[in-house]
């Protein structure tokens, strides 16, 4: 799932042609000689970690406390909504109920061979979470220069929020395209 803006850094002077020929950015001191350079305008500045909320034990919950570093980057309610939704997903995944009973019995009955064929409920919810985070990133966080990392990649210990800055307004050299990819470790 790619979500990219090929316009690169905005250059009001050469809107139409900046994709075709080297454009001169109005803000940066450097000159872009190729499309690749023009596209890479954001750089990772820092990361904010939203820690786990252990107040109710080892169930997976993240703190909904709003980090101060994100005050100027995103509205509080958006991030809180995201975290609350994630918490609800994790609560659903860890819920002990009928489905978990059935899974356990089936696994026992088949000598756990079923795990080779079928993915568990938790894994299914994790996929949902991953899709949700991806959607949130594309719709809300990437436009604000932020990126959420799936907590499962960090061992469910933290929810990592990467903060990017507009490299173009600060300096000349472009930086690499920022991507959030959940890759195999």
């Amino acid at each position, binding site marked *: *799932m*790619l*979500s*990219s*803006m090929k*316009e690169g850094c*905005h250059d009001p002077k050469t809107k139409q042609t900046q994709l075709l020929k080297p454009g001169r950015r109005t803000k940066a001191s450097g000159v872009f000689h190729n499309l690749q350079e023009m596209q890479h*305008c*954001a750089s990772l500045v820092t*990361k904010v*970690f*939203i*820690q786990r*909320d*252990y*107040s*109710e*034990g*080892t169930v997976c919950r993240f*703190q909904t*406390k*709003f980090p*101060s570093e994100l005050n*100027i*980057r995103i509205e*509080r309610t958006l991030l*809180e909504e995201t975290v609350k939704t994630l918490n609800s997903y994790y609560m659903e*995944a860890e819920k*002990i109920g009928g489905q*978990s*009973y059935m*899974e*356990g019995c089936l696994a026992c009955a088949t*000598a*756990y061979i079923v795990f080779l064929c079928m993915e*568990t*409920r*938790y*894994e299914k919810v*994790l996929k949902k979470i991953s899709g949700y985070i*991806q959607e949130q*990133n594309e719709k809300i966080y990437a*436009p604000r*220069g932020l*990126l959420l990392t799936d907590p*499962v990649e*960090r061992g469910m*210990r*933290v929810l*990592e929020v990467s903060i*990017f800055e*507009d490299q173009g307004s600060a300096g000349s050299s472009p930086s690499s*395209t*920022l*991507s*959030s*990819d*959940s*890759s195999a*470790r």
Partner: protein
Amino acid sequence: MPASGADALKPSAFLPVCTATCLLVGATSLFFVFTCPWLATTICPAVPPCCAILFLFVLANFTMATFMDAGVLPVASEDEDKDDGFRAPLYKNVDIKGVQVRMKWCASCHFYRPPRCSHCSVCDHCVEDFDHHCPWVNNCIGRRNYRYFFLFLLSLTFHMVAVFTFGLIYVLHHMNDLWKLHFTVTVVVISISGLFLLPVLGLTGFHLYLVSRGRTTNEQVTGKFQGGVNPFTQGCCNNMEYLVCSPISPKYMARPCKKRIVHVQPPFLRPGLDQQMPMKVGDNGLHTLALENKVCTVELSDIKQMKNPPPLPPKPDRGLLKSHAAADGTTVTASNDFFVLMLLSSILCFSQLLKASEQQANIKGPDLCSGFRESPVRGIHQGSVSVQPPLQPNTVYSSLPLNSRSLALKHSCRYGSKSQLPAMQSDGWRSSPPRGIFTSSTVLANQSSNDGPPFNNFINPTEPQLMSQRGAPSVNFHSHFMVLGSDRSVQCPPPHSYSPVFMGVTRQSPQARDSSLRDLVSQDTTLPKSAAARYDNFSKTIMASINERRELEERERMLHLQARSQAHYCADVGIYDIPSKRSLVPDNAGPSGSRGPTPPAYGSREFLMSTGILTYGMRTSPLSNSSTLSLTHGSKTSSSPLQNCSNSSLQNKGKSSSPAYCSSERQTQAVPSSTSTLPRLTSTNSSAPPYTSYATAKRSSLPFPSEGKESVTLGALK
């Protein structure tokens, strides 16, 4: 054996597991070959199938326990632990269901180990819900595979018991064939099963005990919860249910995921300030005043954008706006402290008025909002709000200040602590909306004059001139605070100190006010910066008693003031012309121009804390800033701990209006909060809900007294 550590991959590490495997499989195979045919024919044909199924179960669990990832936590990236450098503490405390649990820094994995997590030295990784490293399976037993390990033990016990029993039966029936192969093999099998039955039985019983108590082997061996409460247990039955039926948690290492790319390209959206303000207004809980919210939002944005002072008292306002603009400043002069107190008092009055106006369905509109919003801004500079003599009735302003104050009160009620009420009472006349709120103060003064004598000791002696002079009633108020602060050790300030009656009594002549103001300022500067402990200690003891008496007085006063409220509304434009205040304003604006009312109030915070108003002040000022000006975002963060503390404490305590709760809650919350990110109280999950809940609680708890206060403040302000 998904062991990644060097020790786990040593050849010697495989010896126990190979031995266990060989013994298990070999002995059982011999049992099935040599003993089971006779058992099937002699005892029951179902015996071999049942034993086979049981053995299959044993093998399955053994395989899962051996090869399943126990819940290994991946090593933290460098970005995560860059803040936890050499100065990072080794332990972090976290509160789990009221029990303090310590999280230790893992030097190998570079993170603070979650609760119940431990680092396996054999495998060299941290394991979630670490139980132990089992050499017989050469694997860590943790969150993901403890169930299989336990079931393996359980099934192995039954299997060994079955093998031993049936083998014994066979041997007893074939005592005559001692030297036959079947007999010998069966004797060997029952010897092995008998030999290992006792340790396995013991281990199974031990883990049954652990499960019933909700502990891990690691916790049992290290004696973590030996004498205390185990926060992780859910009761024996629930623990068993969790053990058997809980969903398998995911594997964190080597997750196969498809690569998804999200490109982050500037320009980036930024949260608009005016966009934020409506949200904050909404978070403030002004739900019932939708119209006012909208209007106030507009007004807030207008005020926020106002860098110039509002129409009335320009100089003070300018300075005040600047101080508001940099609300998270820490360098505050004593003048700012004084102004902060004024602001707080004004906000308190407004909140009270707001309640009264709600109840009376007398809320009016936009100009009130603006007036309200401006008043906190201006209020600090208007600290020298003088009390107009009650002889200046101004019915024109009667409703406006009332409504604006109502809005202010409502707004302040969202965030203020219960201590608002006493502060409001006393500060009601302090607030200085552009239209003048001094009538209420005059009313207070009038009333206070009735009860004056007992409180003379707390104020400067020049009371009689109070009513007729503009001055700094707030100075008197401050002196009152100062007295309280200095008398903190007294621990028993009179409840009337917060009452309008008292405030009225404390009004002084301008000269006295000026001098007292300067004294106040000097005292503010001399006060220690950090007074959290003092605040807690002081407010606990004081506010509890104060609130009780205050509530009673409120009810009484309300009846009186409602009758008088209309008659005492009058505007006091001249209040803004207090030379002392203006002279102070540039001083404030200069050195601490970038600071808002909340941070500047470190000095006055002492007074506030001593009077129990601090939580309100801390909460209201940044919130006022955010909702009114939103010029700085840092102020919220700087006061958020107290805000969260106060809010959460209020939330937790419900109807109680005592700031002592706030302080006590803050204490309890401050200790267990995880300091992994910021030294904040983590008890509150979000800042918005506590405000709302607090507003609800506050409203519901003080509907009646607030009416009285509102009328009182109206009169005073007018």
